[in-house]
């Protein structure tokens, strides 16, 4: 989706540093929703702006 080398993605990478603007965030959120069969909300990647915090939030939904 972001056309970047997965090796560049670190656990503490912020979504912004990976080039996730609001438009790509929507695609990303939909992918995550489909993959994990959960429902997220617009702006979730602003509230949990890096991978570590986002994953922690996803865990809390289980």
């Amino acid at each position: 989706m972001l056309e970047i080398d997965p090796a560049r993605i670190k656990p503490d990478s912020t979504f912004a540093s990976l080039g996730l603007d609001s438009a790509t965030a929507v695609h990303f959120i939909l992918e995550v929703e489909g993959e994990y069969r959960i429902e997220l909300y617009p702006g979730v990647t602003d509230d949990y702006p890096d991978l570590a915090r986002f994953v922690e939030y996803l865990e809390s939904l289980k």
Partner: protein
Amino acid sequence: MYADKPGETRALTFSQLYLQAADLGFRLASRTCPGDRVALIFPSSPEFVVAFFACLMSGLVAVPMMMPRRNSRNGASAAIITDCSPRLVLSLTALDVFPQDFRDLLENEKIGHMPIALVDNPTENLLTERGPMDPAFLQYTSGSTSTPKGVMVSHANLLDNLQMIRDRLGNHAGSSHVGWIPLYHDLGLIMNLLQPIYLGANCVLIAPSSFMHRPLNWLKAIHEHRAEVALAPNFAFDLCADRFQPHQMEGIDLSCWKIALNGAEPVRAETIERFCDIFRPYGFAPEAMRPGYGLAEATLLVSCGRRGAPTRMMSVSTAALGHGRIAPPVDSRDTARLVSCGSPVVDLSIAIVDPNNHRPVADDAIGEIWVRGPSVAGGYYQRPEESEGTFTAYLQTNGTPDDTGGWLRTGDLGFLDQEGELFVTGRIKDVMIIRGINHYPQDIEAIVGACHPAIRRDHCAAFAIRDDNGTEQIVVVQEVERTHRHSFSEAELVAAIQSAVVTEKDIALHKIVLIRPGALPKTTSGKVQRDLARRRWLAGELEPA
């Protein structure tokens, strides 16, 4: 009417709007003088509508602004505040939702703040007489952060363009509108909010983020409200097609949709065809697709096809296009498809002009689009020089200026075909358009220049290219600082640049190219040559750092 999240729908009737706006206008009058600017910083909400009309009724100049972005330095918001020096800022909530430096700016500039809520029993009323040529609002979509330019739209400009929109699109009091475009954007403000109010028609507003998240909900709302008019930039029609899922469209009937106006960014033939193919089974009529052309400097709408007219497309030679001429394609590989934006609205004239000598170009040639007529605004707020260059141009005919002048130079390129319909082919101004929002290269370059010590300040070029889908994207070419050229981490720099630009501008850069110090093309006076950098990048000629 207003719809946001399910269950959070709020509505205003026309009489409530009048009473609320009159009451607020009365309260504003005690803290302002007629002609003062008042900044409106709201999400799409009934409070914005009330605040906007309160300004119109009390002789104040409304300045719709975007919400300051979270975690951002909000240079653009600060620049607009400094440029228009408002007496008051109005917003939904207390000031503490705004970033600290933005609050500091308001305090230092002694700009007041008023939180706006609808009142239970609006009774006050104070109408301030304003002349038709007085500014109604300032539209800030045309300038960079360093030079924000607020188009002064007068009451007369606005009323003329609203009438032109109504006539051209065949709108009437039964033409319900459903839209999600932000209200600080001219397309959202004028065509989606003020036009239905002008008609006495229903207006349904959806939060922009809600559209981005679930685009098909826009179509659902069009169905539910039996909307005749729903408009958006080109990308939104692509987004609906991208997100199409048959089960989400069950029972949806779009046959009510008469005007699907496509504007604010280049209109693509492929998008129109794809959207029509996917949504025709749900009642969408292809002749509803209405590509249009307009700009804030002309209030909004300049040209558009009539209601019910099929969209005209034209195949032309790509090679000839590159030389500024219109010719039939030689073969399929030499083919570019252009979409007609219709003929100019009745009150406006268009001339296609050589931007260098200001003479009208030949019929088969591309030139700068010039516009003249009553909805062309008076100029940019407190920028007489830029205003003169843009708003009061003279056509040269036979070597002498034509007698009346008063042409608006749009900075866009195009041609008029034999039917007098406008085809937009490109632009000569610096602006880059991402999802219907204008961005300026110098703003992106300034953000990039300040984001990391290994980056060489003022040695950056930002420019737009078309990606494989034909969508406009931004590429940044940046020199690495001499002292860091052997020690920098490319991944770290790329992440820092992406992060800064996403945070400040909400744009993901398409490519970030790091080059060695001195490799960026500049003029002898040290000015970055963006166009040359762009051509070299496209040709693969830029040396990596």
